[in-house]
C-alpha cells in the first residue's frame, strides 16, 4: 500500500510544481469557457441552455490535454522500466497513476466549475448539478484515457493518435454527463437515471482501464 501511496504523492507533487500539468488544464478550461459567451453572443437564455454542455466539453478537452504525458514522461526518463520491474502489480501502479492524475488535473476543474458557471449564466442549482456530474464522470475520462496514454508510449509521438483513440471512448461519458446535468436543471427525465449510468461508466472504466493499460505497457516493452 505504501508503494501506491508513494506513487500518488509523487505524481501529484510533480503536477503541482512549476512545469507540471495541473494548472495547464485549468487554464485551458478557463479559456474555452470564457471565450464561449463572446462567440455565442449575449443571449443569456441560450447561454444557460448550452452552459452544462460547454462546461462538460471544456472539462473533457482539458483533462485530455495533459493525459498523454501520463506514461510518456515516465517512459522517457526510464522510470517506467523500474515501475514494470517492481513488486507492485503493474495494474495497481497504473490505477494509482490515474488516480493521481485525476486528483491533480481533474479535481481542480470541478472546483473551478461554479466560477465558470457564472460566466454562462448558470444559477446555483445548475452549477451544483454540473459539478456533481463532473465529479462522477471525470474519473471515467481519466481511466479510459489512460488506455490511450499507455498505447501512446508504445507508439512514439502518439499524442495526436491518443486523442483519436480516446475521444470515441469518452462520448458515452459526455452524453450521460450532459444529460444528467440537463435533467437536474430542466427535466423531464429524473436526474437519477442518466446519473446512475454515468456512475456505472466511471466504475466500469476504473476496473477495465488499469488492466488494459498494464497489458499495453507490458506488450509494448521493447
Amino acid at each position, binding site marked *: 500500500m*505504501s*508503494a501506491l*501511496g*508513494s*506513487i500518488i*504523492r*509523487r505524481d501529484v*507533487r*510533480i503536477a503541482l*510544481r*512549476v*512545469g*507540471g500539468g495541473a494548472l495547464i488544464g485549468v487554464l485551458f478550461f478557463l479559456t474555452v469557457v470564457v471565450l464561449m459567451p463572446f462567440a455565442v453572443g449575449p443571449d443569456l437564455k441560450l447561454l444557460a441552455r448550452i452552459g452544462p454542455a460547454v462546461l462538460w466539453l471544456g472539462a473533457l478537452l482539458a483533462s485530455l490535454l495533459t493525459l498523454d504525458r501520463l506514461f510518456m514522461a515516465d517512459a*522517457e*526518463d*526510464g*522510470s517506467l*522500466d*523500474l*515501475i*514494470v*520491474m*517492481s*513488486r*507492485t502489480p503493474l495494474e495497481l501502479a497504473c490505477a494509482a497513476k490515474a488516480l493521481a492524475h485525476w486528483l491533480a488535473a481533474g479535481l481542480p476543474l470541478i472546483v473551478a466549475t461554479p466560477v465558470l458557471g457564472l460566466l454562462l449564466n448558470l444559477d446555483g442549482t445548475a452549477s451544483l448539478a454540473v459539478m456533481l456530474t463532473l465529479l462522477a464522470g471525470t474519473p471515467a475520462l481519466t481511466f479510459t484515457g489512460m488506455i490511450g496514454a499507455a498505447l501512446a508510449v508504445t507508439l512514439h509521438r502518439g499524442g495526436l493518435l491518443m486523442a483519436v483513440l480516446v475521444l470515441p471512448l469518452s462520448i458515452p461519458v459526455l452524453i450521460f454527463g450532459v444529460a444528467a446535468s440537463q435533467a437536474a436543471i430542466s427535466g423531464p427525465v429524473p436526474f437519477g437515471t442518466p446519473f446512475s449510468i454515468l456512475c456505472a461508466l466511471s466504475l466500469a472504466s476504473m476496473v477495465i482501464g488499469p488492466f488494459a493499460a498494464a497489458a499495453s505497457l507490458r506488450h509494448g*516493452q*521493447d
Partner: protein
Amino acid sequence: MRLSGRGLKCVRGGREVFAGLDFEAASGEAVAVVGHNGAGKTSLLRLVAGLLTLAGGSIELSGGEDDLPVAEQAHYLGHRDALKPSLSVAENLSFWRDFLGGEATDPAISLEAVGLSHTAHLPAAYLSAGQRRRLSIARLLAVRRPIWLLDEPTSALDAAGQQMFAGLMTDHLDRDGLIIAATHTPLGIAARELQIGGGA
C-alpha cells in the same frame, strides 16, 4: 543464489541480436558483459530484467528469496536515470525507496555513501550528469536487492566516483550479492568476462 541463462536468443525489430548465448553467475560473483556497440549488451540486461521478451532459451534463478521472479529481486541501472527534475534529490530517492519496497536503508545514509548529502534539497534538474548517475547509484543502496543489473554504470562518473562505486560493488558482493554489468571500461573489481558478438 545462482542466476543462469541457457541458449538465450534476442530479436529486436525483426533483427536477431544474438542467439545461443549462455551465462552463469553465482552469489558473490560479478560478470562483466563486454562486446562492441550494438552487440546486445543492453538487450541481455533487459532480457534478464524481464523488460524484453525472450525469443528463445530460458533464464533460471535458484536459491533466491520467496520464489520472486528475477525482475523483482533485481535493481536495473539503465542509461536513463529515472529521476524527476522537479523533485529534490531526497524526494527522488525516497520515492524509489518507498515504491520499490523491501529491506530499506535511510535515504540520508545512501546519499552520504554516494557523496550527495550536500545536494539533498536541490531539485534534480540542477544536478550534473555525474551527480545524476550518483543519485541513481544511491537507489541501489536505498533498497536491498540481491541482483544488480548495471548498464554502463561508470559512464559520466569521475575517477573518484568510479573508485567509490567499485567500493560499493565490492560491499554488495561481500553481502552475497550478484552483479551483471555491461561495460566498456574496467569495473575496478574482479569480474568474469562474458563476450557477446564475437571478438570486438
